[in-house]
């Protein structure tokens, strides 16, 4: 078991955001966390990579409790791909990827570190943009570079926060295909928060559906993604077809008036977030 989550509970102040979450993921698996806004997807990712600290429960990466290993040590087995990169100063793509070697180096980079960074770029067929500035890339290219950085960390588990939310159709597919290729190639495990149910259905081996911070359903895509579950969790009527063995969802209408979900304000998240870092 690469990643195991046991009874995790998390609160922002007095608001319960995650409740009794337990799941496991082994080699070569891609797990998608789905659920409406505020259902706890991102919070769960942040608990796994130790940006947030759960109130209860344990998270084990390769059998080690993440709250007991140092940040640097954790960074050697856990890579994180953010939703997007903040505005920043000019850095070449290669330097941006090389940053992934940070947990492995003290100050001086070895030849091996450069070799690994180039290797990842080559594997992802990004070597032609190695010397371009990261700032100049398109959203899709940036997303690939962020993934390349996480891979050059040589992690066992990869976490991705809505990796396709800012991308066009082609880049969505490219990024996710790249992801499953890498997961197979290096026999990693990946956990990603996803909004697009069809992409989740097509590219995941496992799906965990969250509602109000609790696991509502979990299993293979065809077990989880049915119109009853989606109706209950999202409050949306859908038609679910089968597309080469995987469910394909066609949304029709929201049920009743606005479906109330617990949306926690960003400001509140910010405040609390900082308390646990």
């Amino acid at each position, binding site marked *: 078991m690469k990643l195991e989550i046991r009874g995790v509970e998390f609160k922002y102040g007095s608001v319960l955001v995650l409740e009794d979450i337990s799941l496991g993921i082994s080699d070569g698996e891609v797990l998608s966390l789905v659920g409406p806004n505020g259902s706890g997807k991102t919070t769960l990712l942040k608990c796994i990579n130790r940006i947030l600290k759960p109130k209860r429960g344990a998270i084990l990466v390769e059998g080690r409790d993440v709250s007991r290993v140092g*940040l640097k*040590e954790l960074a050697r087995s856990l890579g*994180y791909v953010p939703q997007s990169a*903040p505005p920043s100063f000019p850095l070449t793509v290669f330097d941006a990827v090389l940053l992934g070697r*940070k947990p492995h180096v003290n100050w001086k980079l070895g030849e091996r570190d450069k070799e690994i960074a180039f290797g990842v770029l080559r594997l992802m067929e990004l070597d032609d943009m190695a010397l371009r*500035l990261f700032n100049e890339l398109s959203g899709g290219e940036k997303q690939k570079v962020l993934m390349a950085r996480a891979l050059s960390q040589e992690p066992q588990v990869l*976490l991705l926060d809505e990796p396709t939310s800012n991308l066009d159709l082609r880049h969505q597919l490219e990024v996710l295909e790249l992801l499953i290729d890498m997961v197979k190639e290096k026999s990693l495990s990946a956990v990603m928060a996803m909004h697009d149910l069809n992409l989740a259905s097509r590219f995941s081996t496992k799906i965990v559906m969250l509602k109000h911070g609790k696991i509502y359903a979990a299993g293979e895509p065809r077990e989880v993604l049915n119109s009853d579950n989606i109706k209950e969790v999202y409050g949306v009527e859908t038609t679910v077809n089968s597309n080469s063995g995987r469910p394909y969802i066609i949304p029709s209408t929201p049920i009743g008036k606005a479906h109330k979900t617990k949306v926690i304000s960003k400001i509140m998240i910010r405040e609390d977030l900082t308390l646990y870092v």
Partner: protein
Amino acid sequence: MATRVETVEAKEVYAKLTARKVLFIVVGLGGLAALVLVSTSLGSADLGVSSVASAIAARIFPFLNLEVSSKVDVIVWDIRLPRIVLGIVAGAGLAISGAAMQGIMRNPLVSPFTVGISSAAGFGASVAIIFGAGVVGVQKYLVISNAFVFALLAAFLVYSLARIRGMRPETLILAGIALMYFFSAATSLLQYIASQEELHAVVHWLFGSLTGASWENIMVVSIIFACCLPFLIKYSWDLNALVAGDDVATTLGVNTRRVRTVCMALATLITAGIICFTGIIGFVCLVAPHITRMIIGADHRFLLPCSCILGGLLLLGADTIGRTAFQPTTIPVGIVISIIGVPFFVYLLLRTRKEYFQ
């Protein structure tokens, strides 16, 4: 095979890029040495570059037994060099502080002065000048020590406020700007009640100049700078990670709070150590890092040392102009650097590709 070849090429180009950064350091240091010689030769007493060079060499390498007249020796070592060396150290220190602050705040508008250090130092100096009273120090050191103490006090206040909110860049910047306004207003109040003579002294201090340079000052500034520099350089990778975002930095194993706190403390210390002797020399700390990034990019491993060199060049260049352009009047370097530096910076900004910060 094709990709293999491309990778080899990319590697070579990357090696070239790195070599270019090293070249920047070498050329920068060479330029600095040349500027020192030229600047030392300029002034009311006309000295040739070669006599300046031998006067400098005579003291550094006494075994060469160079013949130097005592008049030249005095002019070079007692009058001109202290000012020049202080200019370089101050420029370098302010520039690296600026680079570090912009990195930890992930913000191109930030400099050490953004967190209120300068206006607090100005307030401290004003208190010492107008009331002749200070927190610590006696007589001749009163203004210096008061400026230093108030600068650190401001930084500490900003830090304490920001700490409540977990050292987020936004809070640091807002708290800093609020304090800056507070201390500016307090200084204005003091100026309002000051006598003509005191007012003149305060205003002159606020301009920022290298007039008070002495080997003693240089020693203090250099020791602070030399103690802080290795730590900042050591944090190069962490700064690169912070610029990529707090979440990413954390997942790369960086303790963002610690790095931010330590780097801010070091930048503050260097800046306070400089401006308490020179008065408020702005602009270098904002602009030297930007110019350096435009030339060699944003990798802090190179950005920090290169900013130092560029900061030294800028400040020494500006002071040399201020000292010689309208002889015998000397224009304070704080004024010169902004008047000359702003058009130069705007030119670079317009020339640079729009992707500089996005």
